[in-house]
């Protein structure tokens, strides 16, 4: 069942803008046929619509598109440069990581070889006493009870924290530059 039709200025405007539903538009058309004063208002709105639609565009400066293209070329170049420097930085860090890994591997190998020599001989027999590698005799208790230890730990933690902060700032700057 169709709802009761009610004429308002808003409805009339919406009808002129073509935004009423099919049912409402039909009801409005019937109403306008029977009400010349509203019909007159409707025609006025339509005339205005025509006028507004024929309004001219604003025209930018003649060299606007060239400026936009130039700005884009510049930005692309900066972006590429940023990506390249990031890639170079990453590569440098990667190579540094490789050095660290190598040193760590050699160190690990030495430790592993020492353990191997300590417990096994080549033919599966225990290593003779005179072949045993002497274990370092280190006083760990003295080290852990040293009064400077908390300061040393604090110093190391500060260094690690600063390194971490530096990484965050660099990453943020890179992302900001990319955007």
């Amino acid at each position: 069942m169709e709802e009761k039709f009610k004429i308002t200025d808003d409805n009339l405007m919406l009808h002129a803008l073509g935004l009423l539903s099919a049912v409402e538009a039909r009801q409005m058309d019937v109403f306008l046929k029977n009400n010349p004063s509203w019909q007159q208002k409707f025609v006025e709105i339509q005339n205005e619509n025509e006028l507004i639609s024929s309004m001219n565009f604003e025209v930018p400066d003649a060299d606007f598109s060239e400026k936009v293209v130039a700005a884009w070329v510049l930005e692309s170049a900066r972006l590429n440069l940023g990506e390249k420097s990031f890639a170079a930085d990453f590569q440098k860090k990667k190579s540094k990581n490789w050095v660290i890994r190598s040193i760590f591997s050699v160190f690990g190998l030495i430790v592993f070889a020492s353990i191997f020599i300590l417990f096994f001989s080549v033919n599966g027999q225990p290593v003779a006493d005179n072949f045993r590698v002497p274990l370092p005799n280190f006083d760990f208790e003295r080290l852990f009870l040293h009064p400077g230890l908390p300061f040393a730990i604090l110093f190391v933690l500060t260094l690690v924290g600063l390194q971490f902060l530096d990484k965050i700032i660099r990453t943020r700057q890179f992302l900001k530059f990319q955007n």
Partner: protein
Amino acid sequence: MNPIITDELLIRQVLDGRQTAFAALVKRHERYVFTLAMRFVKNREDAHEVSQDSFLKAFRYLSDFRGECKFTTWLYKIVFSVAVNFLRGKNQLLLSLDDDQKPISLPNLSSPDASRELEIGEKSTAVRQAIEQLSPDDSAIITLFYLCEQSLDEICEITNLTMTNAKTKLCRARQRLSKILSENFSEILTH
């Protein structure tokens, strides 16, 4: 420009790194974008800045355009957001479209410039002057609907409004424009 070349084709070419396609896309849409920017910021210098920023932002994210809506709708959405941020940056807050108490500032029609324009009697100048009296989002919604020929659905997409809100805002903006036209430019319009 070859009319057969669609926006989608130009976009593909831009993504392939063709600078000429980029220039063609800017040239094709510059007047729409600039007009929309002008409706917000009301002066040419700022409108140039907003338009350029909008194009650059659009091209930065061009690979994200999936073709789910018209390219123009996607582009106007960017212009809308850039312009709103620009006005916020300048502390020029957008006035609510529903604010009926908003005073309408009218041009000084007795000034020599205004008189000269009135003498010319160009109706489109009168309409433009009337639109300039509207708030930025009023004039933007009118421009999107009439000049950029965006449907109500597309306007919702651009402005992030619901259908009902967009309809109401468009209707109110149009009524305000009608009021300004009838009160200040009726002589020119009836010639």
